[in-house]
């Protein structure tokens, strides 16, 4: 993980935490998907409907917050050489919790997400936050950081899911909103639609950011 990422992500420790600014950071300026380009695999794979995107976002956020908290607590006990292995074991523990929880309480969603729930273990957003933030900051700050990043991930996945579900089947969260006049764009719920919508989304956001910078 490059040092610059840590610098950007670490507000100077003496400052009072500005929660609103933190949320803006997670949702917009350092949005995990659109600005950091992390976690693209689940983003492409499970956003064929809004509910799948939301569920994936929530599961990832749960794992992110829990493991950030634990990693932050033990940050002074872990030798530098084995830190990645340690992070992975902690993350894998919470992923197992999330996976069993989904399978027990929401079997259809668990089935729809398939292997992408266990694959949260190797999600770059989670490992990235441990390396860049949680392993260097106190627990409360780490939890807040994990929360805003998780919210950014949830918002992005749900938005992409909504767009693809509307165009691909005329529905949002399984509720039909477009009448029979609308002919579903089949491509949007296929993998090609994931690449198209993510690419167009990235293009639009880069355009806006470029304009903000002037």
């Amino acid at each position, binding site marked *: 993980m490059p040092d610059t990422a840590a610098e950007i992500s670490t507000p100077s420790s003496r400052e009072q935490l500005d929660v609103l600014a933190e949320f803006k950071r997670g949702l917009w300026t350092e949005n995990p998907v659109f600005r950091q380009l992390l976690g693209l695999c689940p983003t492409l794979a499970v956003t064929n409907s809004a509910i799948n995107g939301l569920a994936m976002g929530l599961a990832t956020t749960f794992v992110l917050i829990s493991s950030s908290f634990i990693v932050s607590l033990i940050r002074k006990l872990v030798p530098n050489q084995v830190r990645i292995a340690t992070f992975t074991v902690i993350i894998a523990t919470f992923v197992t919790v999330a996976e069993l929880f989904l399978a027990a309480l929401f079997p259809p969603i668990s089935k729809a997400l398939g292997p992408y729930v266990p694959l949260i273990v190797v999600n770059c957003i989670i490992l990235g936050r441990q390396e860049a933030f949680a392993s260097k900051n106190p627990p409360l700050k780490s939890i807040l950081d994990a929360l805003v990043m998780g919210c950014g991930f949830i918002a992005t996945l749900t938005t992409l899911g909504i767009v693809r579900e509307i165009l691909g089947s005329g529905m949002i969260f399984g509720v039909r909103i477009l009448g029979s006049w609308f002919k579903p*764009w089949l*491509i*949007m719920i296929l993998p090609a639609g994931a690449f198209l919508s993510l*690419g167009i989304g990235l293009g639009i956001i880069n355009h806006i950011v470029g304009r903000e910078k002037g």
Partner: protein
Amino acid sequence: MEEHVFVISSAPHVESTDSIPQIMYTVVLALIPAMAASVIFFGVRALVLLVTCVASCVLTEYVFQRVRQKPVTLSDWSAVITGILLALVLPPGLSLFSAALGSIVAIAIGKQVFGGLGYNIFNPALVGRAFLQATFPVDMTTWVAPFSYAAGPDAVSAATPLGLMKMEGQTTAVIKLFIGNVGGSLGEASALAVLIGGGYLLYKKYIEWRTPAAYLGTVFVLGTLFWLIDGSKYPNPFFHLTAGGLMLGAFFMATDMVTSPVTPVGCWVFGIGAGLLVIVIRLFGGVPEGVMFSILLMNAVTPLINRYTKPKVFGERMRAKS
């Protein structure tokens, strides 16, 4: 004393006098027979589709370039060509909304996101068609019989010759395919009309003869081979040449200056590769027609072909073996 200024520049020193608008305009001219044939065979409906596609392409190009604050390059006619080519590969019964959507995708995603004319990797018209094929698979494979507009308001649905061959093992007479008068996309109906336009472009030397020669030649040779192996199972080579969008693809899409190789050897490689793919898809693939995918796939490897077929610079010597 008058000062002499010597301009020193790198190669190329010999420039063609043809400008982009002039070439594009000639291509539009060359497409007129195919457009006329489509209107004769499919009626006013074909004309409406052509106008819709061209208008949507031109409008998309204009809006995109204005939003991106880039110079508007409508006057180079390239968006018009994309519109015509897209309309020529659409089924005549397609809804106008779908046609417009395909045009928007063709220009916006097929061309402008790469930076506009000259930078696109894939043929824009085929990108639009591939998008429509994946988006509305049923509409894109619903064909109407030629001259059905004369029979009454209800369009008579018909299978394409390639579809008949794939599903029922039935071939259509080659002469019928050559003149036209078969079900299919606007530009698939008549091989003759496409050939007239293609011949004109060859005569003007605006397209590289090697690409269509290699493309059609490969299809012909492989078609003959399979026909000789089992004539009852595989159609004859002339059927392959005249059916579907092969003529249109060979003369107007595989020869696209932007997305096909620039070297002479590269053109052969491109044509042979595309011909191979057409035969493989037509005879063994899951869809009846393979021209679109063959050209798109070869577009993807065009930079690689260019790199490996770079001609030797005059005076350059083979590296001595050591």
